[in-house]
């Protein structure tokens, strides 16, 4: 088994209202040096690596379901063997 974490975020060109609101809140805390916050989500997948290539599974699952390419983009980390 392999643990994979897939990160999904808005594309650069898409306005992220949550990120903007959180940035404002951080500024209210006094951390004016925090210039930008991007909000996203992650999915932890446990994948049986014995048959299909893990990278292929991650790519297909992301592109067919987890990511809406109109708005979002993704990257992933392959973590230690479970």
């Amino acid at each position, binding site marked *: 088994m392999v643990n994979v974490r897939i990160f999904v975020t808005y594309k650069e060109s898409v*306005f992220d*209202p*949550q990120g903007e*609101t959180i940035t404002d809140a951080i500024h209210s805390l006094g951390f004016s040096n925090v210039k930008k916050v991007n909000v996203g989500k992650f999915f932890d997948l446990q994948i049986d690596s014995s048959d299909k290539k893990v990278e292929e599974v991650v790519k297909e699952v992301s592109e067919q*379901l987890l990511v*809406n390419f*109109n*708005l979002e983009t993704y990257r992933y980390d392959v973590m230690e063997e479970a």
Partner: protein
Amino acid sequence: MKIAVVVFPGSNCDVDLFEALHTVCQADVEYVSHKEKSLESFDAVMLPGGFSYGDYLRCGAIARFSNIMPAIVEFAKQGKPVFGTCNGFQILTEAGLLPGALKQNNSLKFVCKTVDLTVENTKTPFTSQYGEKEQISLPIAHADGSYYADQETLAKLEENHQIVFRYAGENPNGSLNDIAGITNEAGNVLGMMPHPERAVEALLGNEDGLRVFKSLLESGKNTIEEAAF
């Protein structure tokens, strides 16, 4: 014309849609469960508002995997009228039947109010009873109604007159180009965030949505007449 109102787990405007057609328009309408696999015998399909599958992952993303979905895609490909309001619109974009996507409102708030709209295209099966550039008011109720598409897609929508409804006053959600409703390129699939089914009787305070349904029924008559001659 026989019309299907598809019911997903979490749909909550299905009864409004059904009654707008049944009680107000005296149309032949039936509920169709998401578990069904066929839309044979129907002439139009309507996807209601609500929170199908709890809005898990993204609004409308999971409904794409319902049993009924391949039949809806096939129905749309055949050029038959398909309509989605609110969550129905989100489902149609997630299923790839309409371009672009609906994202969280810029305000981050659930917006529930009546908004002003301009009817931008009256040459669709859902808007023939409106006047070109007519100003109407319809209720909206959503948290994820901000329409987004890349610049190329937006330009194509404008060029092909696929933008059918536009917010006329204040833009309530940050939708690009003030988009409230669009069709596919062929014009037989319409998705819109406002709820015409909630504005079909004077008693409810607004009748501006009624002509969406009257237009559809009228288009059905024309099709039947064309077939007869």
